[in-house]
């Protein structure tokens, strides 16, 4: 909470972004104490990792300082106080924290907890709810992520010319020669990060993890590489058209699983019919759609980072030319 107040006060955007990262990490540990290990996992990799990175890139492009606000903050404060007061008044009717008989615990929750082991056969209930009971929702969310990737591409993609590339590479070389130790250390770390991403991906049935987290961690490994070795080197390793294709393929895998289960006589995303044994079918279905989710999330995150970084390099190159 103190961090949030500090974010409000500080004018230097770099500090604000760093504090936002710390805030993400703190809220992740908060989720662990509330038993939401999967959520904490996601928040730690997203809130403290990727989002900080993207904001830093944006700050690098747009400048660090914030102007003093011209209008009076008292009105805003008043509005906030009134809203907060009303909300607190509203909480007096809420069930107490941690109580077992709260309305939330009495609808579909018990069914997920009691029956998911027999029906799905996956120990991690979060995974079975995410991928099977509410598979349709998750499909929609994957599509939203895919759409956001397209949006960022549409807004920030740069038409690259060969002469631009050489100018950019010159900047990169001058920038990256300094970080020799970092480069050596990171080079040894990256295989482990990617391996860990695969572990998270395929172990999501049994422990915390799954496609969303694995995708973000995988993308973080690639982004780390791109940051230290320069974007043009990273682009040579991972071709952007390929990544764009992959992001679409992930959604396609997800949808196809649904269609195949329809062709096998079930309803959309009903994995029980994928195999003779319903439990095995569920396992297969969850594995496949988690794969689709992971592929889409990883490639969209890489696309987003490439677009952001590419934009900032493009501007640097333009500035370099005009000087």
């Amino acid at each position, binding site marked *: 909470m103190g961090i949030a107040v500090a974010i409000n006060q500080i004018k230097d955007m770099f500090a604000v972004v760093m504090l*936002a990262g710390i805030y993400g990490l703190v809220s992740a540990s908060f989720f662990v104490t509330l038993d939401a290990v999967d959520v904490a996992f996601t928040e730690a990799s997203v*809130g403290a990792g990727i989002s900080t990175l993207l904001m830093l890139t*944006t700050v690098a492009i*747009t400048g660090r300082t914030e102007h003093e606000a011209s209008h009076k903050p008292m009105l805003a404060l008043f509005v906030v106080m009134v809203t907060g007061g009303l909300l607190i008044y509203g909480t007096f009717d809420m069930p107490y924290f941690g109580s*077992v008989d709260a309305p939330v615990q009495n609808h579909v*929750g018990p069914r997920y907890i009691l029956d998911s082991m027999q029906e799905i056969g996956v120990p991690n209930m979060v995974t079975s709810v995410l991928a099977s009971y509410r598979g349709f929702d998750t499909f929609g969310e994957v599509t*939203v*992520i895919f759409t956001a990737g397209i949006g960022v591409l549409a807004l920030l993609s740069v038409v690259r010319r060969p002469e631009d590339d050489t100018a950019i590479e010159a900047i990169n070389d001058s920038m990256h020669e300094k970080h020799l130790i970092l480069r050596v250390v990171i080079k040894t770390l990256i295989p482990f990060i990617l391996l860990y991403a695969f572990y998270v991906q395929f172990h999501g049935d049994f422990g915390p993890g799954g496609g969303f987290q694995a995708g973000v961690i995988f993308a973080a490994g690639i982004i780390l590489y791109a940051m230290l070795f320069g974007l043009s080197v990273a682009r040579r390793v991972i071709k952007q058209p390929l990544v764009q294709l992959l992001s679409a393929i992930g959604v396609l895998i997800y949808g196809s699983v649904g269609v195949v289960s329809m062709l096998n006589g079930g309803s959309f995303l009903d994995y029980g019919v994928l195999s003779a044994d319903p439990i095995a079918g569920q396992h297969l279905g969850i594995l496949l759609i988690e794969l689709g989710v992971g592929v889409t999330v990883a490639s969209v995150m890489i696309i987003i980072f490439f*677009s952001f970084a590419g934009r900032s390099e493009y501007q640097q190159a333009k500035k370099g030319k005009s000087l």
Partner: protein
Amino acid sequence: MSMILGLYNYWIVIVLMMIGFYIIIAHGHLIKKIVGLNIFQTSVFIFYISLGKVEGGTAPIWQEGILLYSNPLPHVLILTAIVVGIATTALGLALTIRLKEAYGTIDEDEIQAMDNQAMDNQDKESKPC
């Protein structure tokens, strides 16, 4: 006293939410607005997760001999919401970059002022008398 202990999680959520809300409406800087939006968002996440918490329960991963688990449903909703949140944040930041390129500033008031000026100029051109 039991009321304070029973409801403090909602109050933390509300305070966080209001800080985020204040940052959104009181600051002109667009990146800061996005950070404020993120704080607001996280407070909603905490709200959902704390609703699913059961006193004495454990993380919802099935294990022999454990009977009391926290509710997995809010976890699922929030897990996907976080990833969708980062995607939309990225989109917002991308828009901010384009605004910076178009206007040379990302301060809301300055952009408004430029827009008003452009509008005035247009009005003058359309009415030559």
